[in-house]
């Protein structure tokens, strides 16, 4: 039971507490470039989940045999092999491959994967590393999906997946800018501001309840504490929570 709970913890922290895109700020490039269409996001998300989980497992398996000095090249070779598998697999679907283009080989240098290999899988149990990879991958994919649904729906007025129209607003003259390049930046900025608002609200409530027992890990805890310290004193009206 205990084991199960920690595994779930490893998985779920990737969704919000250490979400790769908003909290760790890694892997932005692909997220912004690909989120113009929901369909490409699904494939990209699957590719990243696959590569992240597999490379986490392999690195965690061989972590005791890797000499410390050359660990980064070894990680990169492990990651590159899995990316090659994805590359050759996706090539069988030409329409998707053409749209994702150079982003498939670029998964190798996607900071999410190297950051998890170096920062987590290099000293974690295999099962934990696998769950961490899955969690971070799903966190990445969910943000990708949120962004792409927003951009495709409001940018073009409809969502098309595998040549099937799922939602059609039926409105002409949608703000095309959301599909174009600036739209990616704007969408990310809005989501990130929304998250800042949500987190501050959450922290002020938590602080007014006294500091929680187990602090969330690392940089995140430091950041929230610092943020709440900088903003004015915890509001009194949230005390009844």
């Amino acid at each position, binding site marked *: 039971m205990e084991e199960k709970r920690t595994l779930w913890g490893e998985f779920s922290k990737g969704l919000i507490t250490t979400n790769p895109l908003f909290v760790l700020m890694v892997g932005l490039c692909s997220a912004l470039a690909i989120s113009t269409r929901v369909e490409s996001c699904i494939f990209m998300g699957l590719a990243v989940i696959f590569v992240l989980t597999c490379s986490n497992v392999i690195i965690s398996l061989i972590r005791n045999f890797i000499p410390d000095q050359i660990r980064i090249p070894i990680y990169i070779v492990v990651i590159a092999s899995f990316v090659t598998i994805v590359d050759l697999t996706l090539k069988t679907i030409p329409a998707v491959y053409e749209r994702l283009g150079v982003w498939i080989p*670029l998964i190798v240098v996607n900071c999410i994967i190297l950051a998890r290999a170096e920062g987590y899988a290099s000293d974690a149990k295999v099962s934990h590393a696998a769950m961490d990879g899955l969690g971070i991958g799903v966190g990445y994919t969910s943000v990708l999906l949120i962004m792409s649904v927003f951009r495709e729906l409001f940018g073009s007025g409809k969502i098309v997946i595998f040549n099937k129209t799922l939602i059609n607003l039926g409105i002409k003259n949608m703000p095309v800018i959301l599909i174009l*390049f600036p739209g990616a930046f704007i969408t990310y*900025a809005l989501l990130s501001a929304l998250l800042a608002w949500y987190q*501050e609200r959450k922290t002020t409530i938590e602080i007014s309840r006294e500091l929680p027992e187990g602090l969330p890990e690392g940089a995140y805890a430091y950041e929230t504490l610092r943020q709440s310290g900088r903003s004015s004193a915890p509001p009194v009206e949230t005390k009844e929570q």
Partner: protein
Amino acid sequence: MNEGWRFFLLFFGSALVANILLIRFIALCPFFGVSNSLETSLGMSISVIFVMVMASSVSWVAWNYVLEPLHVGEFLYIPTFILIIASLVQFVEMVIKKSSPPLYRAMGIYLPLITTNCAVLAAATESVKPGFFTKLNIAYSYGFIESVVYTLGVAVGFSLVLIIFAALRERLDMAPVPKYFKGIPIAFITAALFSLAFMGFAGMFSL
């Protein structure tokens, strides 16, 4: 269209029309990471131009004289290129450290970061391996000089935007910004406006 004009178009096309940061979103992590101050972004820009051009040239040689003749390019190009970049960065770091300490002090800390800079791998892959080249409407035949000119354009475009953006962000720190937009969100909004401006180049060169 003569050769010189074509190279000119290739250079400006890759630097401005298909700007790697604002139009194609490659290498955003170092973009938002080091654009805090003008000085660091200058150091980063010089290092990126240098490493990128070298990486593309070496990758070109590896692709055309090793991978392609042996017919292993399709499935070995990713590990090969990334290892070329990683070892090149190490090599450049050692050479600079020995030969020019002042330059090392200026560039040193950015060199390891460049290994995971996706722009380097992207430029190397696009300019060397057929099938990824950006739609620039320019005849491109994967020659050596073409690949160097293209990479140089990409690197110059990267540096230009990085330096301008760093200057903008230094001003942004003092600007009155809505509370929840402070820091990263407002930087992204700025980048959006910046990107909108760069879209204008597409019409200017009518490539």
